[in-house]
């Protein structure tokens, strides 16, 4: 993906978040086998728990408007600890990419192409994603998210109508009959695996223009749309499959296989397979992109595109190594992942926010105009973060290969005096912000920032 010269609209970003969560509907078997007919309640519990988590994300972004997640971590924790956490996050994003790529390939193998070797499917998807990461743009990507969200919602509603004759609403009974620890476990899985994974979007929020309302409505709106879709899918599956839902590794797919309104309107699972492949492709591409730009930032590469194929090859390979089979993946998804992922998704962002607050690094949420101008002021930080790194000497955002010696504001005194920086950004406006891109010079390289690599 090219570094963006223009900001992404908040609404588009919201649909990208929604689409990302929708694409996780395949993973319902992780928690459906635990809470069975009460799985829909668990999704609602997860949404409630996600509320403060998303608030933490939004607060974090608004506190450091010109930075992405890594910029924030480096500012708050300093050079060494910050880089250590960034490294861990790169690993986290990488594993997510690898697992989702593996999920996508296994889904296609299990449903459409059983004879095709998994490695061929993985490489094919990865190359397509690599192409999207190489030439696509964030703006195009989020537009694609909006389109996919709408198509997915339409298909879910259509399948609900088509399976209406198979539904038995007594399948939802009895409610809340299981042991409380099962609800806790399942809620943790739902929060961890699809919902709080939206932390990956924190790597791109510096390209987003949200207006007066800030990031919380954007993020939470996306989570709510995604949650509603997953809720509809789960409720449909429970109503159709009843107590057998816990037996299937892909309950949604089995539900769609049951559709038989007439002889002609039957065997429609291929429609569902296509939409799920498209959604998962979207998810993998996002994860891939985030992994590439975060690895670039940590490894201080000039151009993130140099890392695309390297990370892609590693992702394909590790997909085969991480779990020996889908059962082990499922087991891990139920017992290990929900304990490890929250460290990255909930605990670290929360601790970062608290530390930032105590150290006086946070500042009040900016108004719309401030946010906008602050963002444009931060182009030198924001664009290179995706294009060539916020802390390193950068290429021009257009990716033309023209090098500039600009330094991001995060290199400068922002970590110590970010408020004054944002003020200057707001007063200078967009044009001045662009000017500052070429004119700004590093002022310090104390704790919280690190020296950029010369180019």
């Amino acid at each position: 993906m090219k570094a963006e010269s223009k900001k992404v609209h908040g609404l588009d970003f919201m649909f990208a978040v929604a689409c990302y969560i929708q694409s996780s509907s395949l993973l319902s078997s992780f928690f459906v086998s635990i809470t069975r007919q009460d799985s829909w309640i668990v999704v609602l519990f997860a949404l409630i728990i996600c509320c403060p988590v998303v608030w933490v994300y939004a607060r974090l972004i608004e506190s450091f408007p010109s930075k992405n997640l890594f910029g924030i971590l480096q500012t708050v924790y300093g050079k060494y600890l910050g880089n250590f956490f960034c490294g861990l996050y790169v690993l986290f994003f990488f594993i997510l990419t690898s697992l989702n790529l593996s999920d996508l390939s296994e889904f296609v193998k299990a449903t459409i192409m059983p004879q095709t070797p998994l490695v061929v499917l993985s490489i094919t998807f990865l190359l397509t994603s690599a192409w999207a990461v190489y030439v696509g743009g964030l703006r195009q990507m989020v537009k694609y998210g909006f389109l996919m969200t709408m198509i997915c919602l339409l298909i879910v509603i259509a399948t609900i109508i088509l399976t209406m004759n198979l539904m038995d609403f007594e399948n939802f009974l009895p409610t809340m009959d299981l042991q409380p620890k099962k609800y806790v476990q399942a809620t943790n899985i739902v929060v961890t695996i699809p919902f709080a994974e939206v932390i990956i979007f924190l790597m791109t929020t510096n390209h987003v223009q949200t207006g007066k309302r800030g990031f919380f409505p954007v993020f939470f709106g996306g989570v709510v749309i995604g949650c509603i879709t997953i809720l509809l899918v789960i409720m449909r599956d429970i109503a159709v499959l009843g107590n057998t839902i816990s037996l299937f590794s892909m309950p949604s797919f089995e539900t769609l296989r049951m559709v038989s309104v007439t002889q002609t309107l039957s065997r429609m699972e291929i429609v569902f397979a296509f939409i799920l492949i498209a959604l998962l492709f979207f998810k993998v591409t996002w994860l891939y992109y985030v992994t590439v730009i975060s690895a670039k930032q940590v490894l201080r590469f000039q151009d993130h595109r140099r890392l695309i194929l390297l990370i892609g090859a590693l992702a394909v390979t590790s997909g085969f190594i991480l779990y020996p089979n889908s059962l082990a993946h499922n087991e891990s998804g139920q017992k290990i992942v929900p304990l490890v992922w929250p460290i990255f998704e909930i605990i670290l962002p929360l601790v970062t926010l608290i530390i930032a607050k105590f150290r006086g690094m946070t500042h009040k949420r900016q108004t719309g105009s401030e946010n906008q101008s602050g963002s444009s002021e931060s182009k030198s930080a924001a664009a290179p973060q995706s294009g060539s790194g916020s802390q390193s000497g950068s290429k021009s955002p257009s990716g033309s290969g023209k090098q500039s010696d600009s330094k991001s504001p995060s290199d400068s005194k922002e970590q110590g005096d970010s408020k004054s920086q944002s003020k200057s950004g707001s007063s200078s406006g967009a044009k001045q912000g662009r000017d500052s891109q070429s004119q700004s010079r590093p002022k310090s390289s104390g704790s919280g920032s690190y020296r950029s690599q010369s180019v």
Partner: protein
Amino acid sequence: MRQKLKLVFAMLLCSTLLCTTGCWDNRELDSLSIVTGVGIDTSKEPGNLDLSFQIASVQNGSKKEGGGGEAAPYLIREAQDRFVLGGIDSLRYGNSRQLFLQHNQVIIFGSDVAKSGVKPYLDSFMRNTETRMEVWVMVAKNDARSILTTETVQDKIPSVALSRMIMNERAISPYSSTNMLQFTSRLVDRSTAPVTLVVERKEEDGLQSLNFSGMAVFKDDVLVGTMDMYQMQGYILSMGEVNGGSVQLVTELGNADLKITKSICKQEIQLDDQGNITFKLKVNTTLTIGALQNFRSMDINKVISLVNEKAKEDLETKIKACFAESQRLQADIYGIGAHIHKYHPKEWKTMEDAWASIYPKIRLELEVETNLGSSGKISESLNMREGHE
């Protein structure tokens, strides 16, 4: 450099397109044996199964096994193995085409297999990605192979004929026929006994036909008994909505054949403080007169009143007979246990383990109301006319 990179990448993608065109998964119609029915019987060799696969003939030129050279639209492939998958696999060696289960219509268990338990064989079908959960499950009165080799007249492929017969049955009531999802759902539920249709082969005047002869009742996955059509009607009438069927009455004054136009049943399950369970059924059936015989010299209103009363008694007897039989078999075919689990989960916890012994003690409270809605195009029968002036 940039242009070169682009070119290399584009070539790489194009080569990917060429190399990964899905050749691994191409399946041509002439390389497939499309299975329309599977029969599972016990083999003479202990521990083995006799598997019969009915394969629809794509070209209508194959010879029927043992036939007189007439073209038949299906083939029967047989295998003997301990496992279903093993049987399918063993057929590879004697078949030029690959078995394709996506269009399978029915899975028929021979009565011997059903009596020994069907879970191990259902497991194979559930795991197979080609099999659909909507495939019909039924029990053959004797062996499954004889069902699949029946020469049905109208629908030439017996499994397709069975599938259509089930659809006709379901137009009347969906409760007696069971697909794999419903069967599995009852197995998972544990308290509810699965039921399936029993199919038998009949031969009259050299003409073969398939016929549903009743309902097989399972306890867990083991066939414990069968109900005849009389009891089966009692079952479907007590389960919910029924949109067809007939009631035949034989009285001293005359005989009547009534058609059920609509029957609705409301179930209610009551638990008292002592833990006694009452199963309340309120059946409201609308009938029309299909035929009246005799009732010589009787007034039509009196006949209707008499027939109505007799129909009510008949339906009550059927429903009670079915319920009594299910209690005798200790098989909760009505899903009373599942209902208690859903609506009284606390009480269910105390009953769950002892459900097999609790079920026979359940009291049935039955209330049947019959309405003779129409007498057809004529009111009095010809016999009734004979006594009048």
